[in-house]
């Protein structure tokens, strides 16, 4: 329980740090963000009245004459109420609404590819350690390393070129066929979503496989030299049972730790992958925000990503404590 409380405390601090970065970063910009914002509105044909100016200043928390700590407090208050400002590039829709539409796409993409990668990578790693010295143990590690050395977005570009434009197997942009379907629970739409997700998911799986394979292989090699594995073999248990139930089961713990770290990377990788595929997720929203100097949207994206990664880290901490009694008892 004490361990649990400590972790909760830590994640609260991390959360506070993420939120504060978000507060500080735009204030490092020279000039006044509200005037940029107001100029933008009048540029797009909006009417500027003193009331609008005051509303925008309140939205930014930069009302003139208010000391910075008070701005900070009102900013924190706005965040707690889910107010992330207005997105200039989306017709002044609240940022939280924009992100609410984009988030399910990213979560689906990252979630599915993470599950596929974790299972595939761990199994390949276990198999490689088990069949150590065979031809695929010498071929696979350099191969996956080389593949993971290719940046996500370049891998995405290559897949678009070869499998999308060249062979025409998969669609190469958008999250679904926007001309034929409306989002909803009908078969055609779901099929279209799956088709459109195929290439981005392949990109993410190839790009993040190496870490899983190598972590699992290296711990599994250490585990295989333990006495209980030898004992299991000596008892004449079936090979599969020794490999999976005895060795792999004990070697999988470090992979679970690395899950939390790899998660941040996969989310980062998904940003670039989404941009290449014009996939309607958070990454693409971030990219559009950058292109149109929509700072409220940029910050909102970062905040949501940071929140998601923190939450997933917290979950993996809990799972780890569940699996490893040494951590649970507060000696972690």
């Amino acid at each position, binding site marked *: 329980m004490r361990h649990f409380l400590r972790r909760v405390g830590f994640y609260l601090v991390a959360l506070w740090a993420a939120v504060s970065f978000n507060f500080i970063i735009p204030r490092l910009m020279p000039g006044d963000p509200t005037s940029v914002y107001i100029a933008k509105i009048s540029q797009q044909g909006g009417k500027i009245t003193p009331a609008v100016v005051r509303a925008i200043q309140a939205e930014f928390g930069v009302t003139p004459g208010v000391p910075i700590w008070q701005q900070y407090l009102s900013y924190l208050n706005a965040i707690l109420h889910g107010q992330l400002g207005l997105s200039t590039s989306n017709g002044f829709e609240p940022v939280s609404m924009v992100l609410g539409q984009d988030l399910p796409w990213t979560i689906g993409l990252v979630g599915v590819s993470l599950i596929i990668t974790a299972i595939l990578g761990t199994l390949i790693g276990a198999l490689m350690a088990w069949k150590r010295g065979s031809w695929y143990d010498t071929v696979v590690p350099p191969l996956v390393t080389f593949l993971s050395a290719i940046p996500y977005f370049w891998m995405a570009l290559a897949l678009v070129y070869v499998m999308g434009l060249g062979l025409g197997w998969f669609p190469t942009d958008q999250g679904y066929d926007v001309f034929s379907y409306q989002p909803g629970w009908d078969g055609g739409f779901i099929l279209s979503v799956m088709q459109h997700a195929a290439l981005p998911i392949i990109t993410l799986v190839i790009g993040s496989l190496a870490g899983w394979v190598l972590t699992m292989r290296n711990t599994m090699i250490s585990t295989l030299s333990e006495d209980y594995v030898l004992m299991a073999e000596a008892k004449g248990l079936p090979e599969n049972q020794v490999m999976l139930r005895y060795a792999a089961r004990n070697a999988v713990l470090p992979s679970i730790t690395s899950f*939390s*770290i790899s998660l941040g990377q996969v989310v980062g990788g998904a*940003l670039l992958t989404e941009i290449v595929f014009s996939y309607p997720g958070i990454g693409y929203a971030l990219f559009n925000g950058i292109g149109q100097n929509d700072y409220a949207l940029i910050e909102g994206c970062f905040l949501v990503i940071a929140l998601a990664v923190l939450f997933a880290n917290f979950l993996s901490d809990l799972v780890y404590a569940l699996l490893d009694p040494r951590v649970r008892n507060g000696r972690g």
Partner: protein
Amino acid sequence: MQLTKATPQKEDVSPTQSGKSRERLLNFLRNITSNPKITFGLGVVAFFLLVAIFAPLLTPYAPEARTVTGLHPAVAPSWSHPFGTTDTGEDMFSQVVYGARVTLAISSMAAIGSTLLQIIFGLSAAYFGGLVDDVLSLIINVFLVLPSLPLTIVLGALASSIAVNQNEFVIAFVLLFTSWSYGARVLRSQTLSVKARDFIDAARATGENPFRIIFAEILPNEIALVSSTFIGTFVYAIGAEVALEFLGLGNPAEASWGSILYWAQNNSALPAGQWWQFVPAGICLALFCGGLAFINFGIDEIANPRLRQSKAEKLTRKMIRLREGRRA
């Protein structure tokens, strides 16, 4: 200890500091050259570094020179343009070679700075312990759980909004800021175990300055780990640098591996089937990062003997397999 092999040489009776370090260096070199993965990786990395350094000697054109004019300046690879040309008729080979300069300079600057920060944070957190450790560890862990690439992109967007993104140092600093935490945590846990050894107690008992203990006694024992985290950081920094440039948050006017891809994407080189606009830069990037990853593999094998397979072990396994095969 081989007592029978005592040699009567003077150096062995009282080994001098320089003799010891020379021996250590020789040992280090022997390890490097005896591991084929490290040799291969170093070869690849050295090749690209040389290409970057001698860029002006290797390229027939300036990177931004418009060598092909007319209606269709983007031409496919030929003898005069081995990698083809860009949409504005610049020679792709010159762009890639000069681009190596920019990309490698920025990312190596970031990686070196980041490694220094990792050493300072990781080692002092572990060595001083107590409150110092609590505070430093908290900072390290917070940075560790913040998603680094999104943070890099947000900072890059900030840099480009205040128009300092043309400055290589700013980009390098952004990369440094977001890449140091993982290595710091790894070094901290290693230092915790080194710190518990007797020679550190001895140094402390003689009243040695704590900074001398950290940098002269502990650090040399963690060189393998420091070099492997340095390489890991380097790989991350290159990837993030290229990603920033690809998003147009670097300096798109200057040729770098990322900005080449930025222009290829912006000019729709893909749908036009102009594969040469994005293949050379991508392959170079993958080769260089692959080379770095190979060095890391090799260091892993040297530092963790269990991952290394001795010749005798290989032979035994082969014999066992042969015998099993005969039985089957």
